[in-house]
């Protein structure tokens, strides 16, 4: 697909409101808007980073290693799971285990990245491949929301990504120092910030029965996988089920696409 080709634009417009498929822009205003939106998420991201920092101290990582991991991996759930399988002494099998669980937990990113072809149309490739290094669930959700509301400023994706990245790296530091001396985060409901923020931010993505059906498919697959399959496959299982259902939704005809 040539990014921003006419067919791309037409398909996107029919599918997803007025702005999808339109060429994206990149402005300072967008960067600032993204950074401001991400501020809402910084408390929970910071606390999560301290937890990962503390876990890495307990597993014997040096401060430098812990900071490096947050700096260049920047994917909290996968860092946590990788630390669970972190061996005391590394051999080839240990490396494979750590990299393998990281690949599994982060596999949803390949889907998110694929969908950004629609929403970064017209952006220069070099810039895009650079800032895709900062792609995580929170800034993806911020940008998906921005597009659904008719925006097309890639600065929103990058501004929120950079903010969250900085908070993530900075938060790793006190976590490693304190190494578990953190007061119970549950007391302040910090364990529920992410699920509630994600859900609230997703509400505007709901536009009707089409979303209801796809999300139910995602929910069923994720819960079934969570119950039946050990490990961390359930997010990507739910994501794939939702996408598949949306693609083959029996209530949506290919040609007679209602205007949305």
């Amino acid at each position: 697909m040539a990014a921003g080709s006419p067919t791309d634009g037409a398909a996107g417009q029919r599918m997803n409101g007025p702005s999808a498929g339109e060429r994206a822009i990149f402005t300072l205003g967008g960067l600032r808007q993204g950074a401001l939106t991400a501020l809402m998420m910084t408390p929970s991201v910071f606390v999560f980073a301290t937890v990962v920092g503390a876990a890495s101290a307990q597993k014997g990582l040096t401060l430098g290693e812990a900071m490096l991991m947050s700096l260049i991996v920047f994917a909290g759930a996968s860092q946590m799971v990788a630390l669970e399988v972190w061996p005391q002494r590394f051999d080839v099998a240990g490396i494979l285990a750590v990299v393998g669980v990281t690949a599994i937990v982060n596999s949803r990113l390949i889907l998110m990245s694929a969908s950004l072809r629609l929403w970064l149309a017209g952006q220069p490739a070099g810039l895009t491949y650079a800032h895709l290094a900062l792609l995580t669930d929170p800034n993806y959700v911020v940008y998906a929301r921005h597009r659904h509301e008719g925006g097309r400023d890639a600065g929103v994706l990058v501004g929120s990504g950079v903010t969250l990245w900085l908070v993530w790296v900075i938060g790793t530091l006190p976590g490693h120092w304190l190494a578990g001396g953190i007061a119970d985060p549950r007391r302040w409901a910090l364990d529920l910030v992410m699920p509630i923020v994600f859900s609230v931010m997703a509400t505007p993505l709901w536009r009707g029965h089409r979303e209801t059906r796809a999300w139910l498919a995602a929910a069923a697959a994720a819960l079934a996988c969570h119950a039946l399959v050990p490990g961390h496959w359930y997010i990507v299982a739910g994501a794939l089920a939702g996408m598949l259902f949306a693609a083959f939704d029996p209530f949506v005809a290919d040609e007679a696409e209602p205007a949305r």
Partner: protein
Amino acid sequence: VSDPFLSTWGSLVAICGMALVTYLWRGGGYFLMGFIRPHPRLTRALVALPGAVIVATVLPIILRTGPLAAVALAVGLGVMAWRRNDLVAVAAGLATAILLRVAGLPG
């Protein structure tokens, strides 16, 4: 089986491996989509993704945490539907969870 190189540098190798595979995913989806002709079905699938990822991430967490989390989430979503304001909705959901926990409810 102990390898002298890996027993010294194993952590760094593992961290770099994690970063590499994660960047492959982050850039790879975008890259591969460059070779695929857009089709309405594919577009619909990709448009459905953000919501599907959120549902698949959040629901198991709520299930693990218990009814308290479900109530807090419901309050957050209810306030969002009512006021259309993210900050107010998140604050309401979290306040609900904190109050229920202060009240001694499990979860």
